């Protein structure tokens, strides 16, 4: 990986792209730490400190992870890239439901461009909604689960009428979302890698130094080095498995050409061991957040026996029951997601359509069955691996016996996403490098 970066630096073209990307990332981080107008920076910091010593899990911490800490601090880029992703998903869903959109999609590039424009408009619409929601939450104190009431995030005593501050807040955060969207597009267009992915990567990676330092502060150097070593091990494992694929050879018999020389290895279907990516983890986390959400409705200060049991055994990330449920959910969702997104029948149909077949297996149903068989066999280790990686941080909770590390970036989702993006970006760089290196071929 590293060699790719170094060679990229030497090529002036790619170097420009890399530097451009880094510059945009810097701008993004700047905006992510800049508090929105009307938000008191110092108060927010105090609240975050209080938060970190509480016990919560689930979606909020996930969201905070994605926004790189920007969310809870209500910075200008607080909403981050989420509105855009949400808007894309919504529009994709709508394409299935609304015939007009489906027709647009079929019209090729020009139609797609229109859909993209709708997505962008929707993104800003969502941004307005979400920022209003967050501002309301922040005002009511719910953002920090009512634990931070003595430090209002949006102070009242500024001399400005509150409604102006709030309006400015919402508008600024919306504009901020627009800027983030634009930054992502800039990276995709003139930088290196896919804009959205790079920004998410940045958000996650931004948490690393602070969290790592926190560990060192509380536990000393020995633990810190141990954690680091473990992290590197996990990263290596993830890199290895993410690249692992089972290749199914395919032959095409649509044309009459001499195919003697190529053997079978040039055409194949790559089935990844982890075909589902990081989605099952997200699904499982979200599902597991439900009990906590329900608990909120009950009286926090006087928990009955049921609530206590649920709190201690299901919500608490250090409890064994929680870990086991989480693990099982991940395995389930992996199979579920793979079965939805990889339809062996459809693939077999497509192969048949273009005259391809797996040597030794007849096209149509036999091929579909074969693909299904291989896929299920390979998804098992994939799902196990996903489960293990995801529950690692929970073990940390147990060992460290300390609920300080909420948004632990060293396991599960964080590592998966970071490695995923890293690999993708490196691949892109490599492929661009390849295209330019022809001087070396001429003696």
């Amino acid at each position: 990986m590293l060699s790719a970066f170094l060679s990229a630096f030497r090529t002036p073209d790619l170097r420009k792209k890399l530097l451009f990307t880094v510059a945009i990332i810097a701008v993004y981080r700047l905006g992510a730490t800049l508090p929105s107008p009307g938000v008191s920076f110092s108060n927010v910091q105090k609240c975050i400190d209080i938060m970190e010593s509480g016990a919560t899990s689930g979606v909020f911490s996930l969201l905070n992870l994605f926004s790189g800490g920007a969310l809870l601090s209500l910075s200008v880029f607080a909403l981050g890239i989420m509105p855009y992703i949400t808007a894309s998903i919504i529009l994709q869903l709508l394409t299935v439901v609304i015939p007009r959109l489906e027709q647009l999609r079929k019209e090729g590039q020009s139609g797609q461009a229109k859909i993209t424009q709708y997505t962008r408009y929707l993104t800003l619409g969502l941004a307005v909604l979400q920022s209003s929601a967050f501002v309301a939450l922040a005002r009511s104190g719910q953002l920090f689960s009512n634990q931070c009431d003595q430090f209002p995030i949006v102070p009242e005593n500024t001399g400005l009428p509150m409604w102006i501050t709030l309006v400015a807040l919402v508008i600024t955060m919306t504009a901020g979302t627009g800027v983030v969207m634009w930054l992502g597009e800039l990276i995709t267009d003139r930088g290196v890698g896919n804009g959205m992915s790079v920004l998410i990567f940045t958000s996650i990676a931004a948490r690393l130094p602070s969290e790592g330092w926190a560990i060192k502060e509380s536990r000393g150097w020995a633990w810190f080095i141990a954690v680091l070593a473990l992290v590197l091990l996990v990263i290596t494992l993830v890199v290895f498995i993410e690249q692992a694929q089972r290749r199914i050879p395919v032959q095409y018999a649509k044309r009459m050409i001499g195919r003697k020389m190529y053997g079978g290895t040039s055409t194949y279907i790559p089935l990844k061991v982890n075909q589902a990516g990081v989605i099952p983890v997200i699904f499982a986390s979200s599902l597991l957040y439900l009990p906590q959400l329900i608990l909120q409705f009950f009286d926090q200060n006087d928990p009955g026996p049921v609530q206590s049991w649920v709190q201690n055994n299901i919500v608490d990330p250090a409890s064994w029951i929680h870990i086991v449920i989480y693990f099982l959910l991940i395995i389930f969702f992996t199979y579920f997601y793979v079965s939805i997104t990889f339809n062996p029948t459809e693939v077999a149909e497509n192969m048949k359509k273009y005259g391809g077949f797996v040597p030794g297996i007849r096209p149509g149903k036999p091929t579909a069955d074969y693909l299904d068989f291989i896929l299920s066999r390979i998804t098992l280790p994939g799902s196990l691996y996903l489960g293990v990686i995801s529950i690692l941080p929970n073990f940390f909770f147990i060992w460290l016996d300390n609920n300080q590390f909420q948004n632990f970036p060293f396991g599960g989702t964080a590592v998966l996403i970071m490695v995923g993006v890293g690999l993708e970006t490196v691949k892109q760089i490599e492929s661009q490098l390849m295209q330019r290196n022809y001087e070396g071929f001429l003696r």
Partner: protein
Amino acid sequence: MHIGFAYTLIVLLIITSAILTMLILLHRGKGGGMSSMFGGGVTSSLAGSSVAEKNLDRYTVLVGIVWFACIVGLGFWLKLAVDGGS
């Protein structure tokens, strides 16, 4: 500091936010696609940026800088106001 300072900044902020949003919407978004984790993997490359796009970029950056400055300014003002008052 005068409250009037804050008022001008806020109004300026609201205006520049609106303009900035409009400018960004005018860009011909290449969409940036979706990252491969969420199911991307389709690369679509439109033409290189034409002269108009470059102009648009310039204006966007300009407005963006003004916008940023407003926020920073307001942040400072807030700090002074809160600390001074409370």
